């Protein structure tokens, strides 16, 4: 992808909105195109988290591996979604597996490069951190709702036996 195509893609994406040209250029400097075939592993739990992905098209399953049960998909991500936040926080290792479900194209943002820029420019660091906090919070909320068992147990009040 050309620099201008990447530039306009980032500008239009809500995740990068209002970062300003200067910071978008910084981020663009850490970006590269990647492609995964259907069924290909994007990353595995425990591996070094080298950055994050913006999915351009395709689908990725975020999975947990449980011995005896196998892989359980806990979330699917689609075009426009951000995949991966473990690159931002020590120990910089993936907490889950991720696997492409279809042919998937994405932009990969290099974590080491971005972290260096965050440290050099705390304002940039804050803007990145606050955006990733939203990613983490929305994942946390998703997990909480899954725990609540939204459709199974009913809590509509007790019938009285009078």
């Amino acid at each position, binding site marked *: 992808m050309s620099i201008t195509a990447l530039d306009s893609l980032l500008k239009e994406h809500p995740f990068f909105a209002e970062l300003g040209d200067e910071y978008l250029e910084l981020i663009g400097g850490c970006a590269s195109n990647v492609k995964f075939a259907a069924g290909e592993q994007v990353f595995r739990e425990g591996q070094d988290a080298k950055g994050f992905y913006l999915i351009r098209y395709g689908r990725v399953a975020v999975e947990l591996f449980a011995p005896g049960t196998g892989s359980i998909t806990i979330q699917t991500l689609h075009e426009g979604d951000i995949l991966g936040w473990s690159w931002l926080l020590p120990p910089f290792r993936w907490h889950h597996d991720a696997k492409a479900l279809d042919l998937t194209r994405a932009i990969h943002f290099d974590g080491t490069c971005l972290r260096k820029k965050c440290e050099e420019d705390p304002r940039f660091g804050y803007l990145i951190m606050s955006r990733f906090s939203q990613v983490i919070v929305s994942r946390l909320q998703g997990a909480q709702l899954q725990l609540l068992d*939204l459709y*199974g147990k009913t809590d509509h009040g007790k019938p009285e036996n009078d």
Partner: protein
Amino acid sequence: MESPKTTETLASPGLDPMLPRPFVLKSIEQENVDTWTLELEAVDADGDLAFEPGQFNMVYRLGVGEVPISISSDPTRPERLLHTIRSVGAVTGGLCAMKPGEILGLRGPFGNAWPVSLAHDSDLVFVAGGIGLAPLRPAIYQVLSERRRYGRVVILYGARSAGDMIFAEELETWRGRFDLDVQVTVDHATGDWFGHVGVVTTLIPRAGFDPTHTVAMVCGPEVMMRFTVRSLVDRGVASEGIYLSMERNMKCAVGFCGHCQFGPSFICKDGPVFSLPRVERWLDTREV
């Protein structure tokens, strides 16, 4: 008020709304591990079976008791009466264990309807969780029978897992239609599921409807509806355009006994379908 207890209380149509009318179980089909769809036929073949989408019957398992159950069949074909029942206790368990040919009692239909005609010329989004697809299905049939009157029609359905879904084949058929956008999600999945994973609220931000011209109809457990309405409002759907079916337990179904009081409303006579502004403050209330 006492539930009827004996077969002698089964009544003829048009009589006392407190007396059940006899129906024969024509067929019973298992939907998932704890849910069955019962097809019923009136013993008195000439009685009226008309109903509106969203209405429910009081279904009486002889000798066990009576429970409110929404009608899950097509209101444009009222002669084919279906109830989809999740076995959670004595009465629902008794109903789900019935064999074709056995007799049960029905009172109804009771309650108000999904306001499908309010959505004419607007986009319409149905959001269902678990067994909540059953009370919405008649409204979906109604809309499909006059499809041209609506804008985009979106069905968002969430279930715990692929095996917990109801009406799976029908969802697949609907998904094949060009004039319907059907999205199904499960909470978690193993290798045999290739669809979306995440709770139903995660489908709302990207679903294809115009929030400023949308009517939403939501049905599922209360906790699911609470989070769903938040996501719909966040997306920009007006509270007045969001309708919910409240299924708190009830007994008499005609507004006498107060069992199903929900804030100032009685679910049986004022509902079960309410617009969000009417029930909003009770949705977040822990005890009503």
